[in-house]
């Protein structure tokens, strides 16, 4: 049945921004979140600070949440999943399963804001030993420690003297199947490196990289301060294996600028894991019947000037459901998707009335 309601699937930064936008311009919006809380990955994965400005994640996300809950036109459904879809653009009917059981919901347009998941370092083809060595952790593990202001070696609870980040874990890798650059890890790792140096001023922090990719203002907001103010050591050369040695971890790789091998002892090794489509993104894309690219992200079919339209009319996507995205990308595309969905329904109702 024809409906002027827009459903936003996913309650992270993108979904919150889209829902708020729709409500603010007078639309009816239902925000569906499978978790029992809003805020998405930054909250679920205990992010300490948001990249690039390192604003504390929890209050920042709470502000986004409050901006949605304050809208009378926004209907928020937590612990709710989309189970089925019927109908077509302008008159979709979703089957939802929530705390109160199954129900159906009519809507005219849908925004997929189901985001990304962190690459599982157990799948990497090097020998980093994420599941083997307690002191090999991933970006989000360090985020959790930074949130507690307590960065230690998980093996012994002691603060690390030497910390390194290994970039491009699970990204830019044909073996793994993720040829793309995950776009944010350079900035996130550098941001975390700064936080480690702030928290542990005596620590030495290294970032081993293939290319540092910090676009636009991230260069001056993160990269240069990390290097110039916080003395993070950037080493061009990627690590190929991590070995235990005398209670420490030995990272081995090639120092490409010197053209020779390197072996450096570390106390804590942080894997800069990339972005993959979240399970929710894969599931929703299949269920809604929108085209996915080879990596499982929702395909934006209309090219760079319309980055949010999917292969199915009336269904839009935003943020990291479309591919690696930082927060700026995410909220920008969320606003774009909100505008497109709202305009789509408005133009249909105008056409129907005339």
């Amino acid at each position, binding site marked *: 049945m024809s409906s002027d309601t827009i459903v936003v699937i996913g309650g992270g930064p993108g979904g919150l921004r889209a829902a708020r936008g729709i409500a603010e311009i007078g639309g009816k919006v239902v925000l569906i979140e499978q978790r029992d809380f809003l805020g998405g990955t930054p909250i679920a994965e205990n992010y300490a600070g948001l990249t690039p400005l390192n604003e504390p994640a929890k209050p920042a996300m709470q502000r986004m949440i409050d901006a949605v809950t304050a809208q009378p036109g926004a209907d928020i459904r937590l612990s709710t999943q989309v189970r089925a879809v019927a109908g077509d653009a302008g008159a979709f009917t979703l089957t939802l399963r929530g705390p109160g059981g199954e129900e159906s919901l009519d809507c005219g347009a849908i925004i997929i804001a189901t985001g990304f998941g962190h690459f599982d370092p157990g799948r990497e083809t090097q020998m980093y030993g994420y599941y083997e060595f307690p002191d090999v952790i991933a970006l989000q593990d360090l985020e959790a420690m930074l949130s507690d202001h307590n960065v230690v070696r998980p093996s012994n609870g002691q603060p690390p003297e*030497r910390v390194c980040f290994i970039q491009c874990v699970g990204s830019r890798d044909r073996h793994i199947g993720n040829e793309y650059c995950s776009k944010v890890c350079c900035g996130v790792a550098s941001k975390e490196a700064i936080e480690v140096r702030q928290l542990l001023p005596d620590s*030495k922090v*290294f970032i081993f990289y293939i290319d*540092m990719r910090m676009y636009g203002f991230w260069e001056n907001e993160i*990269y*240069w301060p990390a*290097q*110039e103010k916080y*003395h993070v*050591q*950037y*080493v*061009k050369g990627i690590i190929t294996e991590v*070995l235990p*040695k005398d209670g420490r971890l*030995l990272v*081995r790789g090639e*120092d490409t*600028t*010197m*053209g*020779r*091998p*390197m*072996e*450096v*002892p570390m106390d804590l090794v942080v894997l800069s894991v990339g972005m993959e489509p979240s399970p929710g993104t894969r599931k929703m894309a299949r269920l809604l019947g929108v085209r996915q690219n080879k990596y499982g992200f929702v395909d934006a079919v209309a090219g760079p000037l319309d980055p949010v339209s999917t292969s199915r009319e009336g269904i839009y996507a935003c943020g990291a459901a479309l591919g690696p995205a930082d927060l700026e990308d995410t909220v920008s595309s969320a606003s774009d998707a909100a505008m497109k969905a709202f305009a789509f329904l408005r133009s249909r109702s105008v056409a129907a009335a005339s």
Partner: protein
Amino acid sequence: MPVSGRKVPPHAIEKEQATVASPISGREVELPAMWNRMFESRVLSDYGPDGFAKIGALPGGESLEWCYGCGKCIPVCPVDVVGEYGPRKLHRKVQTGTDLFGDPDLWLCTTCGNCLRVCPKEVDMIQIMPAVRESAITDGGQVPAELQDVFEKTFRYGNALGANPRRRAQWAASAGVPVRILAKDPAPVDVLFYVEDYWSYHPRGQEAAKAFARVATALGVDWAILGPEEKTLGDSQRLAGEKGLFDSLVEDAAATLAKYSFQRIVTPDPHAFNALVKEYPKRGHEFDALHYTQLLAPLAGQITWAKTLNLKVTFHDPCYLGRHNGEYDAPRTLIEAIPGVELVEMGRCRENGYCCGGGGGGMWLDGFSRDYASERLSERRVREAAQTGAEVLVVCCPYEVSRFEDAAKSTGNDHLRVLDIIELIDEAMGLRPADG
């Protein structure tokens, strides 16, 4: 002959088969042929920010750490062209534990400024090198003997050559025109001509000084020199690390200059010019300073020429006139004004001019640098000049005539004459006495 110099290949040990063991992990790997050289005693065990911290603690030393390894400096570093020193490499060496304070690399940089020109992070070797050198000197580090000798001569005699200060104006006697010395005739003057060391004492420099005397007099310039009162301004000694010596020379020079009334200071030495426009104001001494080409270029239209020279020449931009102080046109205006002179540019000219090797103390480190370069920078430059087909390599820095004349001989380019611009002007104006 290829344009680039012969590079010294890295020392490598290669065997058909080799089993190498890492001294750290203990792992053994059997490697064939070329790959084993990667493992020959080259494993790094430790590195970190300590080297940068030590250098960064010195005023001016902060920026070495800023390098992000783009490598733009390496192709434009004149020292790397003939050797294996370059700013990015140095950054990496310091990161991997090299103690720059005791390393030969400390003395290889000529402070030519070409790396800073291209550096996206503004890693400033022009400040880093003097700061670290000064610290190394103060802490009793290894200063190359030939450089130490120059420091001592400068301290004792007020000139880098160790010449008798009383004979500083001796060249003037045979200039062919009267040269006014302010100590004897202290009346106000328009141009105080600061001759500097190499035009005062070096035989080839004296030729140029005499030429200047004749040209300036013929053009009606009201000028005079300090004579025996003059000491070097010591800018290259400063860049070589002797800041204390430089500071005391500033005091001496400022006191001497304060005795006389003049409008402008003109010098043939781009290094002195650099000191006057950049270092003296920082210490409270403001002068209207000009390089001699800047004094003469506006007068080029008034020159009465006596001869057509019919010469094909090329011009070498002095680093401290060009890149450091932005003057590329005054020398060219003068060269192109000379009748019959055709100027052909070298590939590396103006902003990308190749260093003669004399700056930042390099003038006095040729013996030391020989062990770290396949050839001298001046030799490299002379071969580039010869490739243009020019008969004369024209210069306007007192360091260069002797450097390039030596290099022309050692590279088998004896046919290439090296002349200061002022010598060409002197000749074309017909002022040069027949007996030279």
